[in-house]
């Protein structure tokens, strides 16, 4: 089956006064219809930039280059084409439901305007659709909600409204950029459940972007782990959690608090060291400065290893095998 979304060699650069910041360095991935792909990584690793690059929403200072980027039949490097599918077949929700809605307009207005724009529907049809969608995301008395302003809703409700708004046009792909980060844990779980539920019922593909590997385990079909602007590992949820190959992935998984295992209130695990600067040319493995198993050879080009659909960019890890370590 042809993948719904195909991204090859995506790069996002920021021109600085004297140098260039490489925010995304050659990302490639695919999403199939109805599938949930999670992109995981620390803040600043370029995952949000990746999602914005898909939607052509990058800040003006950013320059994007890409090997290939297709959404179904649509070439996403063609800006005009993007405008047709954006908010229509390809929708997006954001991290901060507090600020992602315009405080100056009522919910109903914000939900219907894009629908009207894309479908040419009448105002009343659009409102009916909005009521339907609000019901779909589990909001009680939706008619009343339409007239309300964002500040009158709780955070969880707002995110539900965001989701409903994204679903107005029956998109095939929903990009969710840290949709639960700003929410309480209980609300987080509700929203996750809602997304999964919607996906099953409506068959939408989801690109779920998060820094929280814990969440990923509950929702992902496939996972892409990003570090310093590049993909370091990709695989099915089972592969990533079952046999993580990249030392960074392993470190991330070690950091997940395990109910029952880690003590309540105990300090969370951290990865020692700092993320390297992405300004200027970045050579070799970006993780090597923090990597417990780094080798001198890590400063050279990193090989991409594959095992079926499971990919990782490291000299290590055909198996968890110490013998693969290169001679010092």
């Amino acid at each position, binding site marked *: 089956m042809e993948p719904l979304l195909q991204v090859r060699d995506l790069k996002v650069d920021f021109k600085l006064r004297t140098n260039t910041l490489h925010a995304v360095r050659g990302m490639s991935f695919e999403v199939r219809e109805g599938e949930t792909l999670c992109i995981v990584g620390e803040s600043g690793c370029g995952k949000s930039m990746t999602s914005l690059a898909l939607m052509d929403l990058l800040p003006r200072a950013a320059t994007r280059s890409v090997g290939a980027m297709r959404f179904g039949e649509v070439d996403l490097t063609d800006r005009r084409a993007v405008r047709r599918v954006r908010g*229509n077949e390809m929708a997006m929700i*954001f991290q901060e439901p507090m600020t992602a809605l*315009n*405080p100056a307009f009522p919910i109903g207005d914000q939900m219907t305007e894009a629908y009207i724009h894309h479908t040419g529907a009448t105002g009343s049809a659009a409102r009916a659709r909005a009521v339907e969608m609000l019901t779909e995301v589990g909001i009680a008395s939706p008619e009343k909600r339409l007239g309300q*302003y964002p500040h009158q809703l709780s955070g969880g409700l707002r995110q539900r409204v965001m989701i409903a708004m994204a679903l107005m046009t029956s998109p095939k792909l929903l990009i969710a950029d840290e949709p639960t980060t700003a929410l309480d844990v209980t609300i987080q779980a509700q929203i996750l459940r809602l997304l999964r539920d919607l996906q099953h019922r409506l068959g939408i593909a989801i690109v779920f972007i998060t820094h929280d590997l814990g969440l990923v385990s509950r929702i992902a079909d496939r996972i892409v782990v990003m570090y310093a602007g590049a993909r370091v590992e990709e695989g099915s949820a089972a592969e990533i959690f079952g046999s993580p190959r990249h030392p960074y992935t392993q470190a991330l998984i070690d950091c997940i608090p395990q109910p029952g295992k880690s003590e309540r209130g105990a300090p969370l695990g951290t990865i020692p060291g700092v993320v390297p600067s992405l300004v200027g040319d970045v050579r070799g493995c970006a993780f090597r400065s923090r990597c417990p198993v780094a080798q001198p050879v890590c400063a050279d080009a990193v090989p991409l290893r594959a095992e079926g659909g499971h990919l990782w960019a490291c000299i290590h890890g055909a198996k968890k095998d110490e013998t693969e370590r290169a001679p010092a």
Partner: protein
Amino acid sequence: MPIYLAKRFGLAVLVAFCVSILAFALLRLQGNAAGALAGEGASAEDLAIIVETYGLDRPLIVQYASWLGDVLRGDFGTSYFFKSPVSDLIFDKIGNTVILAIMSLTIALAISIPLGVLAAVFSGSWIDRLCSLVSLLGQALPSFFLALCLVMLFAIKWRMLPASGADSWRHFILPAATLGYYITPPFMRLVRAGMIDALSNDYVRTARAKGLPAHRVILKHALRNALVPVVGLVTVQLGLLIGGSVVIESIFALDGLGYLAYQAIGYRDFPVLQAVVLLLSVVYVVLTLLSDIVNAWLDPRLRVS
């Protein structure tokens, strides 16, 4: 919010009260009130009569209280120069000033909002730079110099507009354009800053992600929020315009409040001057109060809570 507004209202009243003391002091500042009232060639008996009729021998506080009482009833006394009630004079002239102020504001907004939006949308580009250059030039060019140049071009060279007076709406164009140009920079800066702020907001990204065309994103989602502080500035500038048009009104011989005040200064007509200063201050206070109310109403978050 009612408490907040009540507080603001209380402050406004207090400020107006203090300004009235200042305005009263202004009349007393120039000393010989009786002599000024009596006019030229007044004899000692005349002066005595005046002192008695106007109660100038009473303690200042008592005089102030009775003056304030008159003012509150709309009686600002009699013009030394025209010998007619000050309130009539003000009533006569205020219309022209208000028209001028509103036209200037309209012109300023018509220029500053589109330019501010452009400058923000293309911030850092040549448009932005041009806008800030124009705004800097606007602040640098003395308004009276600009006014004279406009007269030279539009009234004399091209004969498109009248050079002075207030007979028709056309008479207001040049003075309003001058004042408008002069107050455009602060609006442009505010719109630009507000737009840059609004455009960096998540809801703008949401609107773009929804696939809305750029103009809708900018003009509806961003501009609406960027304009909220502009409303505040509008009211403040309206207050300043009504007071600040002295220079322009006198150049264009535009028979308004500023011109009246300027003439009053020339005649040492202190009751008129006092009344205009007081009136303008109160107008300013009222307008700022109004701006708070409008802002509260414009911002849905404040409206409901």
